[in-house]
């Protein structure tokens, strides 16, 4: 089982095309992500990195190519088994929680959908795992801060025990101190649960910190794939990546001054 899992990628994307009306948002992107790997997608706004993530989740109109999870190709319609295996955390914690549902109801919904019993203890455990006590259980989203909301969103994604977690800029809507907390939480969870991460970010520092490998995207296509080590040692060939790196360094220098 372990040997087989190591050989087949957890998530494999081949020549994926996404077209919104006439606009080609993804132009034939391919990548392979090994089980337990943490993979980053970086690029400027509109480079198609979020679209790639949403296409994998079944939220974007795929017009060509193939997506394979653990060796099994996905059809046009995702089945329930897929949603237990793959979950996603959205960028904006203010928009990803139903405004009229308590935390309890938000976490119970996936359990109800998948017919998982033992809800009480699972919900309490999920809240504990993301560092929110059971005191938060019956609150509404408007009674929570941004960081707390994002923790709830993470708890909701984890409660069905997926093996692949898609993260769409999970910290970009949070302020710097909360960002670090949430990133550490995600890192912790990945280690505890042996998860595969696919993380979208425009922040190269976050990606180098969190990810083993990354893909730089521009204009709906791949620029290059790198390991974090290569990025850290500046072993980059493409101009675009160099510019991106320079831009992010300029940003951090100004911030620290």
């Amino acid at each position, binding site marked *: 089982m372990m040997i087989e899992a190591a050989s087949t990628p957890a998530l494999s994307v081949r020549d994926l095309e996404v077209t919104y009306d006439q606009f080609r948002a993804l132009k034939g992107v391919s990548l392979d992500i090994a089980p337990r790997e943490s993979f980053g997608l970086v690029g400027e706004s509109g480079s198609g990195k979020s679209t790639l993530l949403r296409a994998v989740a079944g*939220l974007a109109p795929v017009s060509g190519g193939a997506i394979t999870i653990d060796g099994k190709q996905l059809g046009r319609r*995702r089945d329930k088994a897929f949603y237990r295996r793959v979950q996603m955390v959205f960028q904006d914690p203010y928009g990803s929680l*139903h405004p009229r549902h308590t935390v309890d109801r938000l976490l119970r919904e996936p359990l109800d959908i998948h017919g998982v019993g033992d809800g009480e203890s699972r919900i309490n455990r999920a809240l504990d795992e993301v560092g929110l006590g059971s005191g938060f259980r019956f609150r509404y989203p408007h009674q929570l801060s941004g960081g707390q909301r994002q923790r709830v969103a993470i708890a909701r994604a984890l409660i069905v025990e997926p093996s692949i977690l898609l993260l769409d800029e999970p910290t970009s809507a949070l302020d710097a101190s909360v960002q670090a907390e949430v990133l550490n939480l995600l890192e912790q969870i990945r280690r505890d649960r042996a998860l595969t991460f696919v993380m979208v970010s425009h922040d190269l520092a976050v990606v180098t910190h969190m990810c083993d490998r990354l893909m730089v995207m521009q204009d709906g296509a791949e620029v290059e794939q790198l390991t974090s080590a290569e990025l850290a040692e500046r072993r980059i060939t493409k101009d675009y990546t160099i510019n991106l790196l320079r831009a992010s360094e300029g940003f951090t220098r100004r911030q620290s001054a």
Partner: protein
Amino acid sequence: MSVMGNTTPPPMAEGKLSRREWLLSDRPASRTQAKLGRAYVSWRRFAENRLALIGLIIILALVLVAIFADLLAPYSPTIGDLANARLLAPAWDHWLGTDDQGRDILSRLIYGSRLTLYVVVLVAVIAAPIGLLVGTVSGYAGGWVDAVLMRITDIFLAFPKLVLALALVAALGPGIENAVIAIAITSWPPYARIARAETMQVRNSDYISAVRLMGASPIRIVLRHIMPLCMSSLIVRVTLDMAGIILTAAGLGFLGLGAQPPLPEWGAMIASGRRFILDQWWVAAAPGVAILLVSLGFNLLGDGLRDALDPRSAGQ
């Protein structure tokens, strides 16, 4: 006094919380407390509005009068004293006078409140769910489902309300049940439009995407996640429409196509008082004022509910 939850978690003084503090608690301990707290906040926002409270009082009074009509009405609503009490002016014996059949108008108004409530509640119960269902399904499904459902809605919207109701009553026969059906059939399209517009706003939001990613079926998403969001604007709209429903029912009654005599329906009462409107004005004026008051009550209530329930003004 400010024992709100934004103090640090552990040293929360358990126990002695006033009821108000319990309701407004930042960290409710149970599902019921969370729900009640939310309801309480809405109620406080509603109660700040004086006019809305007046509306609520008018409607509550209408409901109480309808329930206790047997106890409140001094005379029979249908059997009058033809020999001695025809068309008496308002006086101590008959507070609002009597009509041409010698019936006490106050008693007729009191019993008529039952018919008014009957019409209003039945129309709301029939029309609002149809509109909600058509609107949310159409908004969420999109594509040809949306096109078909919305064209049907357009067809219903294209008819003038009273004329379509007239045609239906003419086909089904006069009577208060048929009037209710006619009004219900003509009043759901606006609700469908509202529900569709609300649905289109939220269908692509992240929290609906998140539920889709949970593997929820479209039926579940519409019923459990989208419909509750449309409810508040729908409730407001239905309440505001209640006045119109009462007026349409009264109009049908006035034309002799709604409630049939001797039922004390307010519109029919105005119609029968029309003949004496110059000499015995109170026969038509009393039910007219009653319709005016109740319509006003529903409108004030609706305005108050809009301020209290509107999700946009309530923040996320």
